[in-house]
Structures are given as structure tokens and as C-alpha cells.
């Protein structure tokens, strides 16, 4: 037993020593070439039309220098990197990886294409990959290469079973902005509540009149999370019909819906809603009272008038919330609070 231990000990120490020596030798050998490669790429990105050729580097180091260069510029500026043969070699390798049977390699492939700002159908196919890790990575790639079918696929991904995919799809669609509206509006007609909540979360950040209709249709949805999401969208979009609907949400049976409605009216700055919001200062739920108080504060003078009246309210909860809200410094009031 001791002999086995001693042999293992010697092996581990040798491995450790060999690893350290190899790392030091490699670092020393690569340092100058890495520096030269970074300089060449920086010049190319700065607009040098006749950049020198890249020094020869191991492929991992090549990826590293291209990634460092590409991350600091937008997709169009990355085209300057495409003039280097090494770029084509990396892109070709990444495309091959995208077709690999190993999912971790497919993920690496699409990530590398995202870094390089390259890729085509091979990467797009991964939006339907069986592995969530690969799909979410492909979604990040699709933001850089948006086409109508890819955007539609991203919208579908809002209903993905995997949390990672839903989150990346949300972020991607928000970044795509108005280009995502049409498929998003279509998606808002689907029946699955979880997918609707996810889609309404995106819609609330892309305020557009085309979203008003679907959001109004969901304001009486049986699922409270959908109703709350619809209230947020309506408050973001605005308009008479939407404001009426949000005001109705103030008397919803669900706390989250009432709080979302109160917050939304404050964000809209809809001062005629001040009496309805003042009523909510006595709401049984603390979150709703807080949202109503902050919303009144955001309405400016009309809201503060109602808050001052509430100080003398027979309802101790309403009076307390009014007191706390009126104590808020001005800097915190409009847009300063977080929900």
C-alpha cells in the first residue's frame, strides 16, 4: 500500500512540476508573438488597410487574440478581421464543430462563430438543437444575424422548457427591438400561460401600439401572472383604452396584478388616476400600498396632494404608507425606486 502511495505521490509531483515547466516555457515562447498578433489586429480594427500578416500561433492562442480583438468592436467592425487567413481557418473550424456529434463541441462552435461575427446555416440549425445549452448559445449568435425565420424561432424560444433558452431569447428579442414586434404579436395569441408571461415580459420592454390589442385580450386571463404581465404592457404602451384597463386592474383579486397596475399608472404619469391610486394606499397587501404610494409620488403635485390627505386617513396603514412616501427624497421619486 505504501509503495502504491509513494508511486502515486511521485507521479503527482512529477505531473505538477512538468505542468509548471511546460506552462512557463510556453508563456515565454508565446509572449512576443501574442503581443505582435494583438498589435496587428488592433491596427486592422483601427482602419489600417494594409495590416501585416499575423505571426504563427497555436490555434488556442489564435482564438484568444481574435476574441480579445472582436469583443471590443461591433459586428460591422469585425469585418476588418475577416481579411486575415487565420480568421477563415477559425470560422471553418467553428462551422465543422457546429455539425459535431458532441454537444459541447457544437456549443463551442457556435460560440466561436459569435465571437468572430461569422456563421450561416450551420449555426442557425443549432437554434433547434436537442441540447438547451447549444440552443441558448445559438440564440446569442442569432442576435447578430437576424433574419425573419431566426427572429420567429427566437420568439418561439420564449416557450422553451429550458430556463436558459427563455432568458437568452428574452434578452435577444429586446436587443432586436422593433424587428421582433411582428412575430411577438403573433406569439401573444398562443394559449400557454408560461410562454405568455415570458412574451409579455419582452413586450413590456418594447412599447408599441401593435402590442395593445393582444395585451388587452389578456387582461382577464385566468392566470394572474399573465394579467400582471398584460398590465405592465398596457402601462408601457399607453392610450385611453389601455389606461382604462390598467385602472380596472387596480381592483384585481391578485396582489401582483394590483401592484403592477399601480406601478404602471405611476410610470405613465396618469394624474387622473390619482384618486384610484389613493384608494390603494389602504390595500391589504404591502406591495400594493408601496406601489400606490410611489406611483402617487411620481405623479407630482396631484399625487402629493392625495398623499397629504392620506396622512389623516382613518386607515392607519394608508396613513403610514403616505407618511413613508412623503419622506422620500426628491431624487428617489421619479424612476429612482426599484420594484
Amino acid at each position: 500500500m505504501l509503495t502504491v502511495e509513494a508511486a502515486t505521490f511521485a507521479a503527482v509531483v512529477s505531473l505538477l512540476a512538468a505542468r509548471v515547466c511546460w506552462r512557463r516555457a510556453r508563456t515565454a515562447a508565446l509572449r512576443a508573438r501574442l503581443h505582435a498578433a494583438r498589435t496587428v489586429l488592433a491596427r486592422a480594427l483601427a482602419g489600417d488597410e494594409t495590416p501585416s500578416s499575423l505571426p504563427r500561433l497555436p490555434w488556442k492562442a489564435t482564438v484568444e487574440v481574435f476574441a480579445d480583438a472582436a469583443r471590443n468592436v461591433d459586428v460591422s467592425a469585425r469585418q476588418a478581421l475577416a481579411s486575415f487567413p487565420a480568421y477563415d481557418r477559425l470560422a471553418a473550424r467553428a462551422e465543422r464543430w457546429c455539425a459535431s456529434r458532441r454537444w459541447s463541441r457544437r456549443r463551442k462552435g457556435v460560440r466561436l462563430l459569435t465571437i468572430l461575427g461569422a456563421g450561416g446555416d450551420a449555426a442557425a440549425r443549432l437554434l433547434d438543437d436537442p441540447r438547451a445549452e447549444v440552443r441558448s448559445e445559438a440564440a446569442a449568435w442569432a442576435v447578430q444575424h437576424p433574419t425573419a425565420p431566426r427572429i420567429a424561432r427566437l420568439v418561439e424560444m420564449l416557450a422553451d422548457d429550458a430556463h436558459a433558452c427563455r432568458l437568452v431569447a428574452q434578452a435577444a428579442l429586446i436587443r432586436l427591438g422593433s424587428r421582433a414586434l411582428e412575430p411577438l404579436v403573433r406569439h401573444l395569441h398562443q394559449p400557454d400561460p408560461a410562454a405568455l408571461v415570458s412574451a409579455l415580459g419582452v413586450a413590456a420592454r418594447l412599447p408599441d401600439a401593435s402590442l395593445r390589442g393582444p395585451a388587452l385580450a389578456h387582461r382577464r386571463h385566468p392566470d394572474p401572472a399573465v394579467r400582471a404581465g398584460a398590465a405592465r404592457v398596457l402601462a408601457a404602451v399607453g392610450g385611453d383604452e389601455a389606461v382604462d384597463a390598467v385602472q380596472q386592474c387596480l381592483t384585481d383579486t391578485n396582489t401582483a396584478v394590483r401592484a403592477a397596475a399601480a406601478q404602471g399608472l405611476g410610470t405613465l404619469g396618469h394624474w387622473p388616476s390619482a384618486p384610484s391610486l389613493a384608494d390603494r394606499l389602504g390595500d391589504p397587501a404591502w406591495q400594493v400600498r408601496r406601489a400606490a404610494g410611489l406611483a402617487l409620488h411620481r405623479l407630482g403635485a396631484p399625487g402629493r396632494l392625495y398623499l397629504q390627505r392620506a396622512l389623516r386617513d382613518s386607515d392607519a396603514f394608508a396613513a403610514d404608507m403616505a407618511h413613508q412616501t412623503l419622506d422620500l427624497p426628491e431624487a428617489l421619486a421619479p424612476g429612482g425606486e426599484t420594484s
Partner: protein
Amino acid sequence: MAGEALTSVLAGFASAVLAYFVVVNGFQTALLASAGTALWRHRSRVWQEDQSPLLGSEVTPTISVLAPAHDEEATVAESVTALLTLSYPTLEVVLVNDGSADATLPTLIDTFELSPIHPIFEERVATKPVQGLYRSGIHPGLLVVDKVNGGKADALNAGLNCATGELVCAIDADTLIEPDALLRVVRPFLTRDDVVATGGTIRVANGSQIRGGRVVDARAPRRFLAGCQAVEYLRAFLFGRLGWNHLGGNLIISGAFGLFRRDAMLDAGGYVHDTVGEDMELVADLRRRGRDNGTASRVEFVPDPVAWTEVPETLRGLGRQRDRWQRGLADVLRRHRRLLANARYRGLGLVVFPYYVVVELLGPVVEALGVAAVLVGLALGAVDARFALLFVAVAYGWSLLLNLAALLLEECSYRRYHRATDLLVLLAWSVAEGIGYRQLTVVWRLRGLWHYLRGRTEWGAMSRRGFEVSPPYT
């Protein structure tokens, strides 16, 4: 006749200790194998990962960092500045001044231009009275809570009430978090919706160069106790906690650096006051509740976010710390005893909890009894001296191999220590750790158990040397 009976009892006990040794070390080796695989996968997952989209994303969860401070006048401004400059898009820093008797609050008011506010917060967890709240005029993300002294758990609970983030990051006042640690430790929350808490690696900062609340040059400690703890921390985090990710999940997220779902913490009633193991208690409670209610219950350890801490360098200070840790462990395991061997909790009940009871809680008792039995057995001739020596040598060798494996994992993965000399120093501490240091920790843990059984609940004073701070950048 009596002598023969004693001899056979001792021989039987020696066999039991031997079996215990094989099981414990076998499990440690399984943890190492699990950690090696997990580390490999993790490296592949984060290969050329770009965190900048996360920085600009509107769907990134908001984080509130809770930092309790008590009499930290000398270091509080630098610590808060370091926290405010962490890379994270939606960051709120909630500093809780837990009844400091020194000038902690005036220092904060001067440095960060604090002005008193009366923000709206719901006291969902009862705490000692909050005397005032302050918002910074120059850093909108800084909130200072001034409250009556109530201890660390109470301070964290007060911060929890006032925080607004979806996730809260609990840290110790003397923890130095690496700038991108939050972006890394948040990953599991972005990929899975059943995650309730995550934790990162804690490393020993003693001997390293500190500047502006950051470790700018990581060095291996040169003093014996700190050096042994550096190896111990490497082993505990790099393969202990990481290994648990695939063997039933972690039961501990270090109080020095952990990220939690705020609503789950509030539902659990925050940190418990009447225990010295409040961080472990919270994690055990979150996991149990998650399982019971069918909500998020996964606790994940992430190896690459790093926080640095100063470890005690005196026998007295270290002894107190280990005594407290053992009391905390015993208390948490007693409070959650219904998890033990409970199939309803799957890996947590069938693997993790039994491991903590058998190895972490009872380990020092078995070791001490084993040593005593061997000594008596040797005196009575019931134990073969050559066998006893061989056993000690094998036990030491196995432990040394585990230390070296942790060093190898470190060298092949994150390499926080850049100099070869530091690796050599750590190698020396790995060899030395099993001679004297390990035995001392057994004594302190036994003392902790004894104190727990006698009902001792105080924390004990912690004395630290303080970081060797380098001059600031000019």
C-alpha cells in the same frame, strides 16, 4: 480472562476504525473524481465566454450585496468602494452598520456623502431596531442601514428587509471579492430556475498584496498556520464543494460569499439568531423547504468566482474559529435531523446529510478514540506496532495525495498563484499540514463538540492581523 476480553474489544475497535478510515477516504476520493469531472465540464462551459451581453442585458436579475459592519472604521470606506466597483449591471450595496461604537457611520457619511432617508421597506424578518437609513449622494446604488447591535445574523436580516434585488449576496465585512465574481456566481441562476443559492471559492489572502480592496498579487502564505489553511481551503473548495455538486448538492455556502434568492430567504425567515452556524442553517433550511414545497431547492457551487479572506494566524484565534464551526455544525445537524437517511430528500437525505454526521461531526471523536485505542492496544500488546505505524503512514500518505490533487487541479485550472515559488510553498504546506496542524484541528473540533454539549453559544472574539495593504495607485 479480562485481559483477553479487552484485547479482543481493542482489536474489534481497531477494525472498525480501519473500516471508517477506508469509507471516509474512499468518499473523499470519490469527491475528488467528481470534482475533476465537474471542473473539466465547467472549463468547457466557460471557454471564451463573453460576459459583456450580461452586463447590458435587461433581463439580468438584480443583486443586492449585504455587507454587515461592526467597528470597521479603519477599513469600511475602502471595502465599500471595492463593492461599488464590482462588475454587475444592476448592483445595490446594502451596508449594515451593526451598532458600531467607533466612527464607522461618520466615516461612511463623510466619504459617500450620505443623507438620511426614510425609504419604504417591509420588516418581513424581525430585527433589532433600525435607527436610520442613508442614501449616498454620489453612489445611488449604496444604501446604509444603521441599527442597534444584534450580531451578524441580525445585521444580515436587517439588510435583507431593506434590499430590493431579486438575489442577495451575503458577504463578510473583511471579504475581498474579485471584480467579476458576481457575473460568474450568478450563472446557475441564468441557466436553471430551480437554483436557490450559489457559492464561490474562498481563498486565503494572508501574504497577498492588497490594494484598493482588491488582491492585486496573490501569494501563498509564508506562515505555518495560514499556509496550512490555504491548502485546506483549496482542498475544501476546489474538490470538496465542487465534488458535491454531482453527489447530492452542497449543504454549506460560505457566509463569506454566497448568492441567494431573496424571496426564498424571506420565506425561510432569514438568518437564524440563536446559532453560530447561521450560514449553514440557512442553506439546509432552503434546501429542505424547497423539497417540501416543490420550489427551487438546488444549491450549486461555482468554482471560478473568487473571494479572498484573511484567516487567523494565531493558535488561539484559529482554535476559537474551529470550535465555533464545530458547534455550528452540530447545532444545524440537530435542527435538521429529520433529513437524516430520509429518502424523501434524495441525495441530501441519503448521502450529504449522513456524510456530514459521520465524517464532519463525528470524525474527530472517531479519530481521537482510534488514537487512544491504538495507544492502549500497543501498551497491552493487542495491536501490532508495525501495523499501527503502517496505518499512520498510509493515512498520512492518502491525505497528502488529496492535498496534491487539489494543487494539481488548481494548477490545471485557475492558477491564481502565478509564481512557481508560490506553488512550491503550497507543496511544502501540503506536506506539513498532516503533521501537527491536522491533529490540532481534531482537538479544537472535539472541544467545540464538548462546548456544544454544554450549551455554549457565544461566537468568541476573532483577532486578525489585518491585510497588508499596499500603497494606493497614483
